[in-house]
């Protein structure tokens, strides 16, 4: 009897996506990362007496984009509330957030769980997404035992995206997080930089006996800033909860932190010391009104969404679901692929997909580059693919052309092929003369082949290819050899 058949895991995720606006959500300060402490903190951000918040409409546009992208309801009227608590990096003593009426509710994301063609699909429903401001940071080092406060981040716009408790494994949770991560970047509302904290997840995790309707008591794992940590933290937490229950201890609702060094989660606070945040509508801000016109205007500026693009790739280019999903994993990759196709022709969709997902992705990975920084343009790659298609070069030579272009050695495939003399030899007469030479020079292999050694034939092909430095059309060489040997 294994535990996995006994216990069902229930996971809901809350994600804070930092919105890519120019300025803060309630002030005109910049939100650029990495500035000297407190230089991006205005009178409003440090909460001087008398200052007031003014909503940045750019942040609202981001929320509308997100709502449209996940098929959610966008509230015609939502309300900003104050979440009251004291903390040194919370200058006003309250955070402005949305509580009772969020700007976005419902909707969801299709996710793929597992890898390759065996992956399964699932739809994760969203509960809500709401706008709020970030807090500053407490700096505990280098202040001679005191705590420093950096308010640069205070007031940075966030969209908090909350799922229904619908994920049933760490793999599903990670798949959802990755899909969301890709989507927010796709629609241009978040840079997705997890190291800088632009995209951070909290996971609500509970377990229950398989078949039980009621949820178990949940614990919330805070601030997961990588997909790997998310997987590790959830796996550890699930096992911990199962052990606790099996050993007769009840789970207490708590907030926990994941320690990447130990791979363990540990309790930060329990429900008993939970705050009463005394939420109430912020009287400094009017309710946020979003008209149909505004939504329509934002919608007209939205790019084609990944799901729609994936379906189109399957229908128009005859790609498999897996290929289409991989190519639409990011907007950059999809755009690159479409640019390759535009230059190489639609009939080359499958080889183009293979090159983008294979050679190109591997090379980028090797050099640690983002697609946007690839030294090889989509047009250059298309040039290679065209020359394979018209038999000018073999796949093997094509990889050399790819490397040459990657290294900046030549302006396009044709130039490289010309300069290096890599044009495939397809002249039957020339190949025939070559084959004769090879046969004459390798009598031993010829005899062995005739004696029944199949391997010897491959050696002869190899010799012929070597003599042309790979430029002979391999199929032609094979056919001619077979003919000459009377096979």
């Amino acid at each position, binding site marked *: 009897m294994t535990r996995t058949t006994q216990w069902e895991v229930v996971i809901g995720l809350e994600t804070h996506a930092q919105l890519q606006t120019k300025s803060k959500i309630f002030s005109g300060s910049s939100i650029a990362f990495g500035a000297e402490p407190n230089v991006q903190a205005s009178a409003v951000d440090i909460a*001087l*007496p*008398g200052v007031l918040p003014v909503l940045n409409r750019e942040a609202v546009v981001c929320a509308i984009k997100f709502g449209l992208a996940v098929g959610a309801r966008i509230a015609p009227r939502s309300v900003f509330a104050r979440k009251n608590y004291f903390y040194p990096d919370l200058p006003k003593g309250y955070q402005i957030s949305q509580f009772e009426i969020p700007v976005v509710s419902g909707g969801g994301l299709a996710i793929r769980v597992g890898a390759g063609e065996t992956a399964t699909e699932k739809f994760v429903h969203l509960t809500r997404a709401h706008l709020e401001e970030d807090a500053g940071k407490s700096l505990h080092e280098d202040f001679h035992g005191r705590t420093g406060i950096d308010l640069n981040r205070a007031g940075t716009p966030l969209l908090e995206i909350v799922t229904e408790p619908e994920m049933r494994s760490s793999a599903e949770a990670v798949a959802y997080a990755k899909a969301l991560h890709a989507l927010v970047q796709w629609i241009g509302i978040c840079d997705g930089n997890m190291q800088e904290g632009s995209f951070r997840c909290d996971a609500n995790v509970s377990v229950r006996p398989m078949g039980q309707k009621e949820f178990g008591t949940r614990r919330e794992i805070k601030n997961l800033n990588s997909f790997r940590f998310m997987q590790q933290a959830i796996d550890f937490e699930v096992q911990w909860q199962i052990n606790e229950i099996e050993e007769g201890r009840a789970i207490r609702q708590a907030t926990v932190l994941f320690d990447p060094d130990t791979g363990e989660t540990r309790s930060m606070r329990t429900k008993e010391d939970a705050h009463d945040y005394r939420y*109430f509508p912020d009287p400094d801000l009017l309710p946020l009104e979003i008209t149909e016109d505004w939504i329509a205007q934002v919608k007209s500026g939205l790019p084609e969404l990944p799901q729609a693009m994936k379906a189109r790739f399957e229908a128009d280019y005859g790609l498999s679901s897996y290929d289409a999903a991989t190519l639409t994993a990011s907007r950059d990759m999809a755009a690159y692929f479409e640019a390759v196709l535009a230059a190489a022709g639609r009939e080359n969709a499958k080889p183009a997909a293979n090159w983008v997902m294979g050679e190109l992705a591997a090379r980028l990975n090797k050099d640690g580059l983002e697609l946007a920084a690839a030294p090889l343009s989509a047009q250059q790659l298309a040039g290679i693919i065209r020359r394979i298609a018209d038999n000018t070069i073999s796949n093997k030579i094509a990889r050399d052309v790819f490397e040459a272009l990657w290294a900046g050695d030549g302006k396009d495939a044709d130039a490289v092929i010309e300069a290096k003399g890599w044009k495939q030899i397809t002249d039957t007469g020339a190949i025939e003369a070559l084959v004769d030479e090879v046969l004459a020079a390798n009598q031993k292999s010829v005899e062995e082949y005739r004696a029944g050694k199949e391997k010897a034939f491959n050696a002869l092909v190899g010799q012929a290819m070597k003599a042309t430095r790979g430029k002979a059309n391999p199929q032609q060489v094979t056919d001619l050899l077979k003919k000459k040997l009377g096979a």
Partner: protein
Amino acid sequence: MSGLINSSLRELSAALAAKKVSAVELATLFLDRIEKFNPALNAFITLDRDKTLAQARAADERLKAGTGTTPLTGIPLGHKDIFCTRGWRTSCGSQMLANFVSPYDANVVEKLAAAGMVTLGKLNMDEFAMGSSNETSYFGPVRNPWDVSRVPGGSSGGSAAAVAARLAPAATGTDTGGSIRQPAALCGLTGLKPTYGVVSRYGMIAFASSLDQGGPMAKSADDCALLLNAMAGFDARDSTSLERPTEDYGRDLDMPLAGLRIGLPKEFFGAGMDADVRAAVEAALAEYRRLGATTVEVQLPNSGLSVPAYYVIAPAEASSNLSRFDGVRYGYRAPEYGDLTEMYSRSRAQGFGAEVKRRILIGTYVLSHGYYDAYYLKAQRIRRLIAADFAEAFKQCDVIMGPTSPSVAFAFGAKSADPVQMYLSDIYTISTNLAGLPGMSLPCGFGNNNMPVGLQIIGNWFGEAKMLSVAHQYQKATDWHTRMPEGVK
């Protein structure tokens, strides 16, 4: 020149324009009076003669050049210490901010400075504007110039006392539940609280955000109109500021009263009003009738709920607004503390006075989980009912009148031991804040012990010009607003 202390703003403006007096001379005249009379009154709590005179010199330059001047250029005034004033201590009457020098100007301060007005200093007030007698100020109480054993009212008590004693021709005030009108009444001044959203709250230290409004305090309606013209207007930094066409609030001053319908809420004329106040208010109404107005009884059936609703909403908002005073970034921090929690609790326990702490506790309580619906949401519903009552009443009348305060200025300590008694001194003024309506108080005679009585006018939403006209016509026919306390002559 000393005759100028009783001059209207228009007269001062004319004298400045005609070069009969310079802005520096005018500022010096009032600074000297402040030096002489302020120690007994404690109206001004921050003065900076050099800064004031520098501003006056700049105003004289403008007047000399004759460009960019306004009717207010060169006229001095005092700012209630709730308005952030760049380079000046802005304490809000609290130890919490006793060391806070504002790095920026409130919108109101900025606008009046842009008009060319000269800042005489910062005016005492109840701590964080919480009080009706000015007894809660960390800097000690303000004394009423008509009788220094009595309170000036609050929370804009310093503003009221300063103008009443002719230490300033005008002052700014703020009104959350009556804090302009009640001290104006108790000191014999004219003060106006505009419709919510007409004057920007940016830089005005928040007490109760949904109720706070800044406004002018001066000797007459005419003065208030001039000041309001300079103070009002949309400000993009205040989301509750209203985008409306610019208006001249003095445009109807000369409109005769004939045909004016004055609504008299029976709820404002019941028990609870002192006889001397009633007599003065009735006499003022008789004068209005004589001038051609008619009176009609109206009903504000929910006005009895205004004080309880106010004492839920205002403390709720205040409890949150005052959270920023935590000793972390500016303001008072306890000299000794063990850990973070202790730093917070000691800084706030020591930095805030008793009344402020009482209201923070009330506000925290009414917003707490499980009590929010019963208190805060219910109070908000009452608020809508009160606004609806007024909307109904204004179908029958152009303005509403009644007493500003149930009594004349009371003696120090008379109500400070009983918060509820103190809270009831705002019983006639609070409902206009809850409804967002404009209101004003103007002197209409004297009651017991020869203390001034205020007549309250409540206008319809955006009815400032109408209210000012109604007040001005009365002030043309009477001279209560020109009276000056003996002790400061």
